[in-house]
């Protein structure tokens, strides 16, 4: 678990409503209002997608929505920037292979 529960400057992590998202079919507890990338980093997910030609792993890089390294297929929509997209109850997130496919991800 990579969440920072206690912080010397920011204080204790406040309790918040939890939402249930699905990552490659597995249910994951996320904090309401957080970005997808944060929820995935909290679970220790190693990579978010693989590139089309060489199937190389990719994760976050810029972290603020500019580089698109962190994209995944979300609710059937490919190339969603997980570092700037908030989680929602029931969201289906899939590790994306290549450019992704509308309506399907790597686990299609």
């Amino acid at each position: 678990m990579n969440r920072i529960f206690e912080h010397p400057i920011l204080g204790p992590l406040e309790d918040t409503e939890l939402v249930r998202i699905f990552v490659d079919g597995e249910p994951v507890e996320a904090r309401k209002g957080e970005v997808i990338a944060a929820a995935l980093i909290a679970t220790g997910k190693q990579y978010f997608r693989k590139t089309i030609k060489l199937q190389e792993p990719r994760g976050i890089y810029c972290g603020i929505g500019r580089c698109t390294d962190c994209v995944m297929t979300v609710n059937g929509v490919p190339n969603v920037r997980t570092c700037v997209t908030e989680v929602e109850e029931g969201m289906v997130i899939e590790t994306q292979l290549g450019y992704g496919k509308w309506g399907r991800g790597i686990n299609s």
Partner: protein
Amino acid sequence: MMDREIVVIGAGPAGLSAALEAARAGAEVLLVDENHKPGGQLFKQIHKFFGSKDHQAGVRGIDIGVQLLEEAKELKIDVWLNAEVCGIFNQNEVWIVRDKERSVTVRAERIILATGATENAVNFPGWTLPGVMGAGAAQTMINIHRVLPGQKVLMIGSGNVGVIVSYQLLQAGADVKAVVEAAPRLGGYGVHTAKVRRAGVPFYTSHTVLEARGKDHVESAVIGRIDERWKPIPGTEIELEVDTICIAAGLTPLVELAFAAGCRPVFSPVLGGMVPVHDAAMRTSLPSLYVAGDISGVEEASTAMEEGRMAGLSAARSLGHIDDATYRIRYEAVENRLLALRSGLFGQKRRDAKEQIVSQSQG
């Protein structure tokens, strides 16, 4: 098409300060930001700022951010979040896409661009591995999202961003294994490097990262010494067991909108690259367009706020909201605070660079 007196693009420290100053002067302001929360990089700055009392020295960036947002609320400034400015036409038409679905054009009498800067990348074998990220990305994850992107970190770059983020990673519970700096001397303030060194983190000057290794994620990094010509010296390689490599190799102003709108550029290597030419009142070569903050040259949050005030003030005055005498007084107050921030060992270089840009605006 809607009409607004002043549109401020970017709600970071510069944009917020510009909007507040213009609103206080009586102008009708619309503040626009592409993110779902305002504040830019300010809410990631959990350390205490330098300067004097006038500059809010000793106050943490996050608390300054909260103050600015409260003031914006009190002044009832119109703020559009999730609003991406995609173009500026005819020097006064701002094309905005709201919530990724609605296109709106706002005709503005004055525009203040406060879009900030973006992190530079450094390429090396393995740099695409998950775990390699900008130092700012790590800072965003730990201070905004409260998650640790890794446990064992290699920091590349010893400028203020590199050393401040290293310290913040330690505070977040990570272990910073080393800070590498390609130059023979460390770049950041001595008090920042001293804090990090005191925590036992080694600094390697004249070193660079040679490779990131790992299968699905970073598992180790190889660093090595470089000579006076920046070439790696064989036999000096050290492999460090890390799961995260942060790149703090400087920032580049985000100038696309300014140049697309037609602002004249000037190259300023000290301040990060191509920036819009502007005068001391922060006005660009286009009379209705102003800039403030990192877009006009990479400095720090304190100078961004002062430049924001300057731009807001100047834009409001150009619309007749402030008389010349009042403007003179406020202008001088901001100018003095900027001069104070741009002094000393580190500040003087920035002051000279800014003066060069301003001198271009008189050409």
